[in-house]
């Protein structure tokens, strides 16, 4: 299995994190996303017409979006069925939070690319969009803690939805978005960091073990 990867790319990190949590061995091929924009070059578009990272290759299969990669990995390599649960309720919840992860990419993720790697766009608008999402996520997680729910979905364990949202949230400060006002989000970040098989990326540090 091969991941076309760029270390500082939030969604590549989601893919690496999922692979690590599942204990799947894989190789990486670095794509010079920044500064060379190699993901938009014809050679890369030949394997991913979307011109997007990450891209996962498993045998002859190719998945060129992070949503596709996480869904495939969970279905193919998680015998417990926890990461992409198969009940009606959890399917709906996972799909919903995966959509929110996409919105986080377009807001918090975009603010990060603008501030850090000088991508085009309106950083203020991206931050405003991200803050609106983070407030909702923080409330959802806060009420979850009250109800005894630790994760975005109502399962007793994390799902691919947590992994899809995590990179954009944990890297928000790169885009100028502080997490000071989101205490439940900060606790959720620590819970993700304490999962067995958790892995860091450049800019994300491990946390201490729970007391």
């Amino acid at each position, binding site marked *: 299995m091969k991941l076309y990867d760029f270390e500082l790319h939030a969604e590549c990190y989601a893919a690496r994190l999922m692979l690590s949590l599942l204990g799947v061995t894989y190789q990486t091929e670095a794509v010079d996303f920044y500064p060379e924009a190699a993901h938009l070059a014809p050679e890369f578009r030949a394997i991913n017409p979307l011109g997007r990272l990450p891209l996962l290759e498993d045998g002859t299969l190719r998945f060129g979006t992070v949503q596709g990669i996480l869904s495939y990995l969970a279905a193919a390599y998680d015998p417990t069925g926890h990461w992409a649960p198969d009940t009606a309720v959890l399917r709906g919840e996972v799909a919903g939070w995966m959509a929110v992860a996409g919105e986080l990419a377009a807001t918090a993720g975009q603010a990060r690319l603008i*501030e850090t790697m000088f991508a085009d766009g309106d950083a203020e608008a991206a931050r405003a969009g991200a803050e609106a999402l983070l407030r909702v996520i923080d409330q959802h997680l806060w009420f979850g803690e009250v109800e005894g729910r630790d994760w975005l979905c109502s399962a007793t364990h994390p799902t691919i939805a947590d992994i899809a949202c995590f990179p954009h949230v944990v890297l928000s400060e790169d885009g100028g978005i502080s997490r000071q006002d989101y205490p439940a989000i900060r606790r959720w970040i620590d819970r993700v960091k304490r999962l067995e098989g958790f892995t860091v990326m450049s*800019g994300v540090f491990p946390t201490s073990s729970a007391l």
Partner: protein
Amino acid sequence: MMAQPCTDTVMLEHWHPVVSLDELRGAGRCRTVLLDRPVEIVRAAGGARVLCDSAPVQTLVQYGYVWASFGTAPAPLFPFPEFDEADRRFVVTGVFGVQVSAGRAIENFLDMGHFPYVHTGILGEEPHTEVKEYDVEISQSRDEILATRCRFYQPKAAVSSDEGADVEYIYRVPHPNCSVLYKSSPVDETRLDAIYIFVQPMGQEKIRAHTGMCIIDDASTDLDIRSFQQTIFGQDKPILENQYPRRLPLDPRAETPIRADKSAIAYRRWLAAKGLGWGVIPAGA
């Protein structure tokens, strides 16, 4: 929204990097901010031209970068002879935006104490945490800071290293916002690799950090070299952005240094002696 443009003469009289020639060649032009002023860099005969509000700004093309100055008589740029050594690879590892002052970024570049904790498994690892005694001098003739005899155990000192080693460092700070470090080359032990950080101060608390290297390595690809350096820089970034105050305090009592901070102490003293008042918190302020 732009802050009041910088009026600090120390900053105005220096040359500042604004874009790498690599990036300019690809993009043709670049819009950025220097000392709170919007600037535009365009390709021109001789390399490049810098404009601010459509008026020409003094422009210099050197060391793979376009430099600009708003001063009346900026001194020539510091010497960087390794840049011209034909057998070295010059690799621009990219430019990254960071919410911090230039001074904090340079201090972090000089600091070895954070290696085992921030660059774990690469530039350091526990229990090898000691910063051994090293020498620092402020050279009056060259107007630069030199830190020598710096030694540190590094598990993976460069992209070409395959095992841990005690690595020797020399740091130069020849410009308030630029530093070059020299470290033993894993490929040729008689030579030193040069790694630079040229900081472009966009504002007092916002920078573009231009990094790259002039190294002896004909095996690694540009992408390998870049990935290695970007990983290091990505690890430093959140640490830098969580330092408060974001401006560098020049009062020796403002923060408590330890022996390992000798180069930072010299750096702050050197900046204070220049009378720098922008991007810093001057003593007595």
